[in-house]
C-alpha cells in the first residue's frame, strides 16, 4: 500500500503579518518556513501506519508544489521518515493551480491513500485537498481526526457540525485531515536527518494550468480599543458592562 502526503511550506505560526509592494503581497523576508502543521500531523500518522507491522503500508511519498526554496521543508519531511519526495517546480499560484499540479504529478502512481491537511496556515484556503480528489475522481472524506487500517480496510473518524462520525470507504481515497489524526508531530532524529540527504527528491516540471484567483490587497484588522480593566473585587461591574455596554448577555 502506498500513501501520499501533500506538504505545504508555510511561514512559522508566530510570523507577524507584514506586507510588501504597496500591500499587494505578504512580506516573507526573514520568515522561518515550516511544514504546514496539519501536514506534519498527516505525515506523522502516515509513518505510524507504516511502522505498524500489521499494516500493509510499504511506501510514504510527499509532494510539494513550490520553488527550490521549499526544499528544506521537504528534507525535513524526509528526515521525519517519508521514503521519497516529489517537488513540482512552480510557485503555487492559487489552490486550483496547485491542485492541478498535484493531480498531474501523481495520477499514474496508484496511491492508495492521499492525506492532505485541512488548510494551509498562511492563506487558510481549505481547498487543495477537495480539488485534488475531484480532479482524480476519488472519494474524499474531510475533517478527518482519525485513520485506522485493518489490512486493506480503512476506517476514518470525521468531525461533523455537532458531533463526529465513523466512516468507511474503499481505497483509494483522499483524507483531508485535522487535529486528532496524530497526537504530537514527530521531530526528526539525527539518524533521520542524515538519511534524508540520500533519499530521492524528484523535481518535475509543472503542467500547463490556470489560476482563477489572485490576492491583490492586504490589510491589518482594525486595532482594538484598549482593554477595560475591572477590579476583581467588583465582578458585578463586568456583568453590568456585558449587559449594558456590550449588550451580549
Amino acid at each position, binding site marked *: 500500500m502506498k500513501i501520499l502526503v501533500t506538504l505545504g511550506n508555510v511561514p512559522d505560526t508566530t510570523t507577524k503579518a507584514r506586507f510588501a509592494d504597496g500591500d499587494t503581497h505578504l512580506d516573507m523576508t526573514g520568515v522561518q518556513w515550516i511544514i504546514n502543521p496539519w501536514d506534519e500531523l498527516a505525515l506523522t500518522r502516515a509513518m505510524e501506519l507504516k511502522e505498524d507491522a500489521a499494516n500493509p503500508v510499504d511506501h510514504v511519498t510527499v509532494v510539494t508544489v513550490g520553488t527550490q526554496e521549499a526544499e528544506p521543508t521537504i528534507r525535513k519531511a524526509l528526515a521525519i521518515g517519508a521514503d521519497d519526495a516529489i517537488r513540482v517546480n512552480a510557485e503555487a499560484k492559487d489552490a486550483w493551480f496547485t491542485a492541478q499540479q498535484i493531480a498531474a504529478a501523481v495520477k499514474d502512481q496508484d496511491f492508495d491513500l492521499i492525506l492532505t491537511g485541512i488548510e494551509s496556515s498562511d492563506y*487558510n484556503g481549505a481547498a487543495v485537498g477537495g*480539488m485534488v480528489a475531484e480532479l482524480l475522481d476519488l472519494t474524499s472524506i474531510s475533517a478527518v481526526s482519525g485513520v485506522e487500517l485493518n489490512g486493506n480496510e480503512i476506517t476514518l473518524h470525521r468531525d461533523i457540525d455537532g458531533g463526529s462520525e465513523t466512516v468507511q470507504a474503499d481505497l483509494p481515497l483522499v483524507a483531508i485531515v485535522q*487535529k486528532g489524526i496524530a497526537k504530537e508531530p514527530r521531530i526528526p532524529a539525527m539518524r533521520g536527518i542524515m538519511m534524508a540527504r540520500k533519499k530521492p527528491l524528484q523535481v518535475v516540471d509543472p503542467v500547463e494550468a490556470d489560476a482563477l484567483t489572485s490576492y491583490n490587497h492586504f490589510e491589518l484588522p482594525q486595532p482594538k480599543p484598549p482593554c477595560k480593566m475591572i477590579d476583581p473585587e467588583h465582578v458585578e461591574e463586568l456583568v453590568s458592562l456585558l449587559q449594558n455596554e456590550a449588550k*451580549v448577555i
Partner: protein
Amino acid sequence: MAVLIYTENRDGKFTKASFESVSFGVRIAKEMNLPAVVLSLGTVDNKALQVLGKYGPDTILTLEDERFDTLDNKAYTAAISAVAADIAAKVVLFSHSNTGKAVAPRVAARMKAAYAPALTGLPVSYNPLIVRKKVMSGKAFADIGLSGEASVLTLSPNAFEVVEKPADIPVEKVNIPVDDNWFTTRVTGVQKQTGKVILTDADIVVSGGRGMKGPENWGPIEELAGLLGAATACSRPVSDEDWRPHEEHTGQTGKIIAPNLYIACGISGAIQHLAGVSSSKYIVAINTDPDAPIFEAADYGIVGDAMKVLPALVEEVKKVIQ
C-alpha cells in the same frame, strides 16, 4: 443565470449558518440582478423548508432523497453541480462549515469555477468580483479577485447578520436523477454531541486554559456556561492533557469560532490560540498575570485568580439572569 445557495440541515432543522448564507446570497443576487435559488439535500419536512423563505430567496429547491441524510462529498458534489448547471449558476454559496469546507472546493473544481473560502462580509466589488477573507489565521485581511465564468464562495459563520421578513415562497422538488454510484462512503457510527450547546454555533463561549490547573476546577466554567446558554471551550494544552475533550480545543489547529462573547479563563493568549477566537465580538479575559498577551486581545479584563473570580461571576450572573 442565478445565485445558488446550499443550505444545511441538522436532523431536519436548518442551521443558523444556513440562514446567514441565505441572507448573504440574497443580498449578492440583488446586487448582481440575478434570482436567488436555495437548495436543500436530504429529507427535510416542508415546514422547515418554508422557514428559509423568511430570508428572501426567489426559489426554494429540495432534493429529497434519504441517501443525502449523511454527508458524502462526492454525491453532494454531483448533486449540487447538477443543479448549478441546470440553473446556470454564476455564484454557488456555502457556509464555511465542516460540510461547506468538504464540498465547496470539489464543486468549484468540477465547475472549473473560481473558489474563495471563508468570506468575512459582502464583496468589495461585483464587477470584477472581489471578496475579502482573513489570512494568516486572522492576523490580516486579504482581497481576492475571482476570474472565470462562475464562482464558488463560502461564508464564515457569524460574519453576516440575518435579515428576516415573513414570506411565502413555494417549495419545488428538484428532478435530477440520483445515481447510486455517486455514493462511495458508508457512515458506520455517529457520536452526536447531545445536550450541550454546540461550540461552533454558540453565541457565548466560556473557555479555560492551563491556568485552571486541572479538570477538577471546571465546575464554575460549566456552571457559568449553563447560566449563559454558552458552549465550553479550552486551549490546546488542556485538550492535549485530556482535561477536556478535543472537540473543545480552539485555536489555529483547533476550532475557529466567532461568538458574540468569549470568556477566556487562565488562558495566556498565545498567537495560535487567538487565531481561533479573535473574530469574537467581545472578549473577556481573567488571568493572574497583568502582562498576559490575552489582555491585548480582550475588551474587558480582570487581573485575578480565576478560582475566586469565576465563582463570584457565577453569583453575579445569577442575580441578573433571574
